[in-house]
């Protein structure tokens, strides 16, 4: 499985309140949430983003609230993968649980600029900046999480492993 798209680039500590402001959390409709994704720090994001694009950030991406609406809004907006130097733990967990691929790779985050074309090979964790022709290797998921991704998310995994 491969993702390729244009990079949207953000800095440190992108919090869940800017990913999806709480004033829009009176709905759980993914499309409605996606319409407001990132609007408080990047008002034109939702107009510019195309299906398959890649979000890249520095450290502690997704800090703050436990709202699953945040990874859901990013995924529904069309983002195929988030690459960051590090992720806040609840955001990391939520992304895996809903099937939004996220990769922790400080070197790649440092080597990607806004507008670069990025490709990601999920089976190997290889991230390539097609614009600068540089590549990096992200830490692969531990086997437990790979099984969960293979089962297409937490619910299906637990149905098989725990309730069966």
């Amino acid at each position: 499985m491969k993702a390729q798209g244009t990079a949207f680039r953000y800095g440190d500590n992108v919090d869940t309140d800017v990913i999806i402001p709480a004033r829009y959390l009176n709905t759980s409709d993914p499309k409605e949430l996606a319409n407001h994704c990132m609007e408080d720090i990047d008002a034109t994001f939702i107009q510019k983003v195309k299906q398959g694009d890649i979000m890249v950030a520095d450290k502690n991406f997704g800090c703050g609230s436990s709202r699953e609406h945040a990874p859901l809004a990013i995924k529904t907006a069309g983002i195929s993968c988030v690459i960051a130097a590090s992720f806040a733990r609840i955001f990391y967990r939520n992304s895996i649980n809903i099937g939004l691929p996220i990769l922790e790779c400080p070197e790649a985050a440092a080597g990607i600029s806004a507008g670069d074309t990025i490709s990601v090979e999920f089976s190997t964790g290889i991230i390539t900046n097609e614009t600068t022709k540089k590549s990096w290797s992200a830490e692969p998921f531990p086997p437990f999480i790979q099984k969960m991704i293979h089962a297409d998310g937490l619910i299906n995994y637990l149905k098989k492993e725990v309730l069966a």
Partner: protein
Amino acid sequence: MSMTMSQKILAAHAQVDEVRSGQLIMADLDLVLGNDITAPVAIKEFAKFGVDSVFDPSKVALVPDHFTPNKDIKAAQQCKMMREFAAEKEIENYFEIGQMGIEHALLPEQGLVNSGDLIIGADSHTCTYGALGAFSTGVGSTDMAAGMATGKAWFKVPSALRFHLTGKFSPWVSGKDLILHIIGMIGVDGALYKSMEFTGPGVSSLSIDDRFTVCNMAIEAGAKNGIFPVDDTALAYLAEHCKRTPIVQKADDDAMYDATYEIDLSTIRPTVSFPHLPDNTRTIDEVGEVKIDQVVIGSCTNGRISDLRVAAKILDGKKVNPQVRTIVFPATQEIYLQAMEEGLLKIFVKAGAVVSTPTCGPCLGGHMGILAEGERAVATTNRNFVGRMGHVGSEVYLASPAVAAASALTGFITNPETIEEK
């Protein structure tokens, strides 16, 4: 064995003798929590399991506290969905308006938290219950759904940072100043994926409300949980509120910590987090002149009775600055009633503050005190991110109830030590 207190609780719930940091475990849950924002998403996910009932209707808590009393039609729809799910699944701990309080003040008060418990909640401030010696952590809605269906959750066993406390606070210094000081010291990702374990002789001088406030904001340092030892103060609270027998887990003497921080509580100053991150802290002596438009006293961080008492002590017999909208939120109905009986609500109203029903309201920019562009608030809440309390061009300064109340009087961020008591 050399396990931290958090690891001991995880091991007990995974039915193993020992866990190591980094290990992935499946563990049994004592309580699964959701609110009116996170539960609707979880209810949709729960339906995908194809099970008829929750794993144990006495171990699920649903609290409509964020956008309630319903702020608009969409919020009303979300709450309705949650109410109907609670009725259909016979959830014992659903708290309707009238019984409702802010979840992290409400659950311990209602006796749903015991020491030694393993609790997940679809709210990031679920880490609050570490004050009572429980391992509790925030998760998302899918984890909540899975927890409701199976009674289990997966965990990556965390390593820990130790905060060894000595000494006692000075007057007007509280748990809020301690946790803001710590976050300022280690950063908003300083405890990422880790436990924050509080130990040492200074612990005994902290009230249970101070400990709730400290653990509540562990997430603002990125932590998985914050936890205090189960001492006489915790046992006294549990005896008053929780019907179950306390389970006392202790860190092993040779437990390993990634780092130990020594903190003398007598050196902590009233502390303020400037916009737009909780780690952007300054002591009250360094704040300079910051004019404010609003003061919010309340939330899961600082809406407890001792917080209201401190605010009332400062506001008693005085008037808030006419240019400062001052809003007080008792965190639960019981706290509201207690504040009424103690005459605190009268002090607030006479001072020119408003007193609201319990709600998360303005803390997350929901309702009941939203800021306009360019406005500034001093709030006893937990986050000061861009746009957190309203317009993206507004600012939130996090502080203790003492600093917030003192600031309401003057219209500037103010040191409570400079206010003359009645």
